[in-house]
């Protein structure tokens, strides 16, 4: 029968279609079991960072079948933030990113990150959150929530050239421990000929690429904070802040132990290697670089104290982004936990020069062995006792620029320290008004 044949063929086709779509559905559900995550990370120190990160990710994937993580190098810290926010706005946000700790309020205000607290389910999770150095967590908290997990952290160290100290009649094994000591040592170390030509400066404190971080090495030693914990109010015009800035200005104008004008962040280590400066303030993240390139014995010390001892922390934390499914969030948290185990934190610290972010990481055999061969690596950790959170506010980049511009204006002599900090405070107050 013709009709029957047609119906039969139609049924056969329908059956095939149904079978095919079932097959596709099955394939689809199989794929859904694989949780895919994107991970942005920045690079701001030397070394084969992408290789190390790729190695970590591969090891994590091997231990956690069903989760695939795509690590993407996103440039320097600034670029990484720009890329992350742009990607978020275009709907292709990363799920995990390492960004500056001071980006916290920017990320909260843009409404793109997920608080960590509600994701913790077990006692082990909560113990993990409590395992970090408390000072590293200071930049993680806002609005009663924890938003980020310490990963690549640093602080300011003083590097000194032991040969230059010996040549100047100073104890080569002793760094200046107070502001006064630093000035006295600096004056002995600065070599000036009869014509006023300087062949070696006493000290260089870099003042480009965010001089506020270095200033905090002085304000914290002068026992003053630059902003409140909520990031809504700044204290730039407090007398103790002005005094700290004046000290920095005096290093070049009054004591003449530092080159006049602003000093490049990137060229400071080179100046140190070229023996153009006998001391420098730099990130602890530069330790490996200095160790590799200094052609003379060098020492590493804490930022000198004034009315107290203090140094700002710096560096990057893990953030988790919104728009993840529940499974993705769990997997992302698992990855961050895995990346910050004591063994991994120790390994990452040894490979890069960052400070291992939890005390138990320093007790691991690998770290103990490393410290035995290179005791200077522990100085930054010991400085944490005196360290405090880095300045971070709402509209952080803009407030930071108001401060940076005015620090530079004071250093180049365009404004007095008092005027500069008064201007910075007025600008910051105007910027922060909407958040109060």
């Amino acid at each position, binding site marked *: 029968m013709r009709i029957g044949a047609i119906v039969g063929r139609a049924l056969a086709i329908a059956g095939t279609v149904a079978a095919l779509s079932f097959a596709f559905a099955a394939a689809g559900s199989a794929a859904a079991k694989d949780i895919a995550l994107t991970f942005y990370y920045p690079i701001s120190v030397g070394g084969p960072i992408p290789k190390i990160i790729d190695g970590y990710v591969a090891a994590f994937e091997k231990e956690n079948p069903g989760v695939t993580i795509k690590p993407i190098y996103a440039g320097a810290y*600034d670029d990484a933030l720009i890329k992350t926010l742009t990607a978020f706005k275009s709907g292709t946000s990363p799920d995990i990113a390492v960004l500056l700790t001071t980006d916290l309020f*920017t990320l909260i205000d843009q*409404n793109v990150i997920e608080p960590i607290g509600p994701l913790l389910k077990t006692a082990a999770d909560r113990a993990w959150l409590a395992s970090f150095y408390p000072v590293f967590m200071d930049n993680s908290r806002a609005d009663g929530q924890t938003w980020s997990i310490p990963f690549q952290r640093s602080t300011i160290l003083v590097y000194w050239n032991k040969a230059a100290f010996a040549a100047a009649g100073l104890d080569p094994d002793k760094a200046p421990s107070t502001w006064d000591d630093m000035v006295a040592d600096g004056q002995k170390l600065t070599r000036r000929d009869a014509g006023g030509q300087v062949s070696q400066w006493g000290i260089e404190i870099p003042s*480009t690429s965010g001089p506020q971080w270095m200033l905090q090495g002085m304000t914290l030693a002068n026992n003053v904070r630059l902003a409140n914990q909520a990031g809504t109010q700044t204290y730039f015009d407090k007398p103790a802040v002005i005094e700290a800035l004046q000290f920095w200005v005096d290093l070049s104008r009054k004591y003449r132990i530092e*080159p006049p004008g602003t000093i*490049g962040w990137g*060229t400071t280590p080179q100046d140190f290697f070229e023996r153009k400066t006998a001391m420098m303030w730099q990130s602890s993240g530069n330790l490996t670089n200095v160790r590799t390139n200094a052609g003379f014995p060098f020492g590493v010390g804490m930022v000198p104290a004034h009315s107290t001892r203090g140094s700002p922390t710096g560096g990057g934390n893990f953030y988790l982004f919104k728009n993840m499914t529940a499974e993705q969030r769990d997997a992302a948290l698992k990855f961050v936990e895995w990346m910050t185990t004591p063994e991994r934190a120790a390994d990452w610290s040894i490979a890069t020069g960052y400070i291992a972010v939890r005390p138990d990481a320093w007790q691991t055999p690998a770290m103990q062995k490393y410290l035995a061969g290179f005791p200077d690596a522990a100085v930054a950790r010991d400085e944490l006792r005196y360290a405090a959170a880095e300045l971070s506010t709402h509209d952080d980049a*803009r407030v930071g620029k108001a401060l940076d*511009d005015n620090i530079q204006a004071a250093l180049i002599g365009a404004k007095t320290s008092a005027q500069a900090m008064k201007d910075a405070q007025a600008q910051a107050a105007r910027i922060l008004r909407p958040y109060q």
Partner: protein
Amino acid sequence: MQNPDQTKKRADGAPSPLVGEGNRLSVPQHLRVHIHGWLLLLPAAVLLVAFTYYPAVRTIFDSLFSTPRGVRGAVFVGMDNYAAMLADPVFVRALVNNFVYAACVIPLTIALALSMALWVDGRIAGRPFLRLSFFTPTVLPMIAVANIWLFFYAPGYGLLDQILGLFGFSAHNWLGDQHTALACLIAVAIWKDAGFFMIFYLAALQQISPQLAEAAALEGASRWYFFRRVTFPLLMPTTLFVLVNAIINSFRLVDHIVVMTQGGPDNATALLLFYIYEVGFKFWDTAYAATLTVVLLTLLAVFALGQFLILDRRIHYQ
């Protein structure tokens, strides 16, 4: 001048196109030509609209709204962003810096490019090497150039201080001094672009007929007179082209600022586009960045109009 329709009517004896049968055929054909033309224009038009006109119009539109932040959307604020801009000292500083920068970079680059072209156009020993060495800076990316110059300017051991030291000058913090930082960036920009513009001048010089030089020599014209009255006027079309590019570059190229000074010290080297980048991508104040962009657009539009309306008329094209 006769109406083409009338000419046509007389030529083929057909009635006026407005009435009669001929019209029925000529309109579709007319349309077809138009459609054909528009289709040919379409790819370019789509690209122009998508990447030039739409963003420009959208920028002006966005500059009238506030920046959306998190859950708060954008609201219409009228000219508020413009008022804030005029009261913004960093904007004023960046604008003044940019004019100083352009006023130095443009004439010096063109003068240098022309001198180099005249030199390597002559018969001198080692000409290919000279041409190559003049052109090399153009091939390097600006980021690489800036990183090289960063160490030229390094106080004390930098190339500049080492050379000046031979003549007894003391070390100077070139990029850290507000009086010299902008000049340092200007020097980099000139060094980078002069070789590129030299190529255009060189090509133009080789187009000038040698007969002119022979005739001038017969007349006893001096070389300077010949350059002033013959060579330079004949190079004017190239000069206009180079000028347009130099102006655009002086507002467009800020890579070296990012590498060398980040706008410092205290905004002494902030240029308009660099400040737009900071406001847009560091402060995420997109509305204010749009407002600043409108200023940049207006400036470039005024320059372009001036060049094409005023200069173009005075130029002799061969």
